[in-house]
């Protein structure tokens, strides 16, 4: 029997997984958009995004648009790779149960 893969704990967190998945479908996104899509609180969202940034999975860009501060997030290549590997590990763990 082959060894079962381990799930990346940084990606496995529910909100972090949602954020990586959301960012994988867009070029970049604002904090407010991520908050609206996940319905998470500012504090929780900020903390999880920080963990993703520390892991190198998310890059942050801060700028001013019409004198208003804007924080943009985008998934990095490392983050995209981590998400892909996580999905492959999930599918391997679930095996035939994936269609049940």
């Amino acid at each position: 029997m082959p060894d079962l893969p381990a799930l990346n704990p940084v990606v496995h967190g529910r909100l972090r997984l949602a954020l990586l998945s959301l960012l994988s479908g867009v070029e970049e996104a604002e904090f407010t958009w991520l908050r609206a899509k996940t319905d998470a609180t500012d504090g929780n969202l900020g903390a999880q995004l920080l963990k993703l940034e520390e892991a190198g999975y998310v890059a942050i860009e801060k700028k001013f648009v019409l004198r208003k501060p804007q924080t943009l997030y985008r998934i990095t290549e490392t983050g995209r790779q981590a998400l892909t590997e996580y999905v492959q590990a999930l599918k391997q763990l679930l095996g035939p149960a994936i269609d049940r």
Partner: protein
Amino acid sequence: MQDHTTEQELKDRLSLIESMIAEGRRNTESWGWTFVLWGVVYYLAIAWSAWGHSVWAWPVTMLIAVIVTVGVASLKADNHPETTLGRAIGSIWMALGISMFLLFLALGLSGRLTDQHLFVAVISAILGMANGASALILRWKVQFACAVVWWVAVVTTCFGTDTQSMIVFLVAIFLCQIVFGIYGAIAEAQEHKRRGPIHA
């Protein structure tokens, strides 16, 4: 970790990934209001041109619709993420808006807005093209059904009587603008409600 993780939790993670990727790529459903707006504007323009016999009916109503659409869209775009798919869909509808505006403006002011059948056929063909292209990109069957309705309107108006042509046009506007727009808005609201908050 997976020793403590149940099969159901793993499936839940997989479904979360799918729904979030789809959410990031979603564009058209948040535009349900524009379909309703343009549907109402078409009705107003038809009523104005039918009873008022004014050459200004279509140019003025189209101009107002473009201003309202661009104004509200620029407010909504403030925190909307940039995607290739979004740009593709947005480009189709922006090109449609410009085409319709110039066509109605030129036809209205030149006084050549006289053949009802040709007029309905041209509008229906343009709307069929935009809905069809958008539906094929998004793989959205409901929107493709709208494209089919517009294409049916193109053929019907060419061979039908004046009354049949107008009825087909009014029904197509109702189904593909008003009903489809409301459906899009409701679908978006339901999806948002169903998903609920995501905790860490």
